């Protein structure tokens, strides 16, 4: 019975992928992509990867979806001219050949994977006790491979600086996004008042439970960022100007705390980012607490885009 369900899910995902590619309208393709992300979430649940499923739902389906919708809206005015300029037959054949080659290379790689796949999972489970956290994913992300997570947080910061660098000179330091003039009695303003209390509790719960169960700072921060965006979209609050000192400090606070913990490890435990015995869980919590506001701000600001207006408007 469950095989039938899995087979149906796989067929649906493949069909949706094809539909997303051949869809002529950008908004239709975006909707296809979002549903594709949500179906992938179900696949991860079926594969028992609950942590990955949460991330896929929050970032792959949610935040990326909003990002793509705003891109599609922005491209709407140029879409008809872009479609009028049909690429030549040779360009299209070249693109098709290139895509087919990439697919073939990926298929060969996947089919050539050793069976059973090489895994470090038993070693993680054998050593998880020293980290004092119960969720192996958190143990890997913040203890065994903490370096990757640190670099990931810094990469996100760079991505935000990249987005900001698209600002026109006159708007630099100003507020990102367009001024929302939503109806204060409208349905969106209503939801933006009702939903955030629930969303904030859910976001912090998912962050807190991440130490022992599926969840964590990334998924929690995404939910918090979504609540913030909802309030801003409804016009109940305005985006902060990016020149604010508190904003800049919060943006670097997470990575700085992470690096500071790493340096403490270098002094007390002999290696960068290694935790002294008995303090592992405390230090992991310090890092997670410091990263949470930073990630929330980065994800929210990245969706708002480059500054487009001055501080006062």
């Amino acid at each position, binding site marked *: 019975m469950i095989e039938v369900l899995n087979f149906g899910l796989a067929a649906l995902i493949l069909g949706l992928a094809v539909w997303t590619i051949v869809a002529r309208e950008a908004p239709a393709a975006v909707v296809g992509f979002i549903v594709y992300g949500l179906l992938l979430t179900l696949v991860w649940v079926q594969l028992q990867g609950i942590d990955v499923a949460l991330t896929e739902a929050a970032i792959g389906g949610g935040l990326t979806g909003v990002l793509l919708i705003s891109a599609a809206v922005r491209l709407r005015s140029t879409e008809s001219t872009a479609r009028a300029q049909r690429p030549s037959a040779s360009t299209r054949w070249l693109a098709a050949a290139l895509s087919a080659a990439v697919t073939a290379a990926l298929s060969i790689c996947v089919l050539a994977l050793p069976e059973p796949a090489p895994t470090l999972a038993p070693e993680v489970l054998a050593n998880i006790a020293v980290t004092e956290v119960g969720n192996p994913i958190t143990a890997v992300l913040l203890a065994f491979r903490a370096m990757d997570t640190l670099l990931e947080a810094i990469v996100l910061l760079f991505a935000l600086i990249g987005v900001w660098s698209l600002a026109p000179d006159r708007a630099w330091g100003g507020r990102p996004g367009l001024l929302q003039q939503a109806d204060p009695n409208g*349905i969106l303003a209503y*939801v933006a008042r*009702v*939903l955030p209390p629930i969303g904030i509790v859910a976001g912090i719960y998912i962050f807190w439970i991440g130490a022992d169960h599926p969840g964590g700072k990334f998924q929690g921060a995404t939910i918090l960022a979504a609540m913030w965006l909802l309030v801003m979209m409804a016009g109940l609050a305005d985006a902060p100007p990016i020149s604010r000192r508190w904003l800049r400090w919060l943006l670097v606070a997470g990575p700085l705390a992470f690096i500071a913990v790493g340096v403490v490890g270098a002094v007390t435990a002999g290696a960068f980012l290694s935790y002294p015995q008995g303090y592992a869980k405390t230090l992991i919590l310090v890092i997670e607490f410091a990263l949470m506001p930073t990630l929330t701000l980065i994800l929210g600001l990245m969706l708002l885009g480059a500054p487009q207006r001055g501080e006062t408007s």
Partner: protein
Amino acid sequence: MKLFLDLWTVVAVVAGAFFFFAGTVGLLRFPDSLTRLHALTKADNLGLGLVVLGLLPQLDSVSAGLKIVGIWLLVLLSGATAAQWIARTLRQSGPGP
């Protein structure tokens, strides 16, 4: 008792699936956006609600039951919001397809 609860689950989930099916058919077949919206909300409200009610006896803790009822309420809220929003946009842009 167990048999009765299992029977309830099967009946309610099948009824929920029927509303999802009917909602999907309506979405594909109804002539204009407002009626399609009407069909869609039936799948959200009644379909998911019946599935949740049907699954309640199969859960082993009260907190799990509260969680899935909470999910249903959140879906109700988001579904109603989206439907209101789309309908309002449609009304402001005038009658159309």
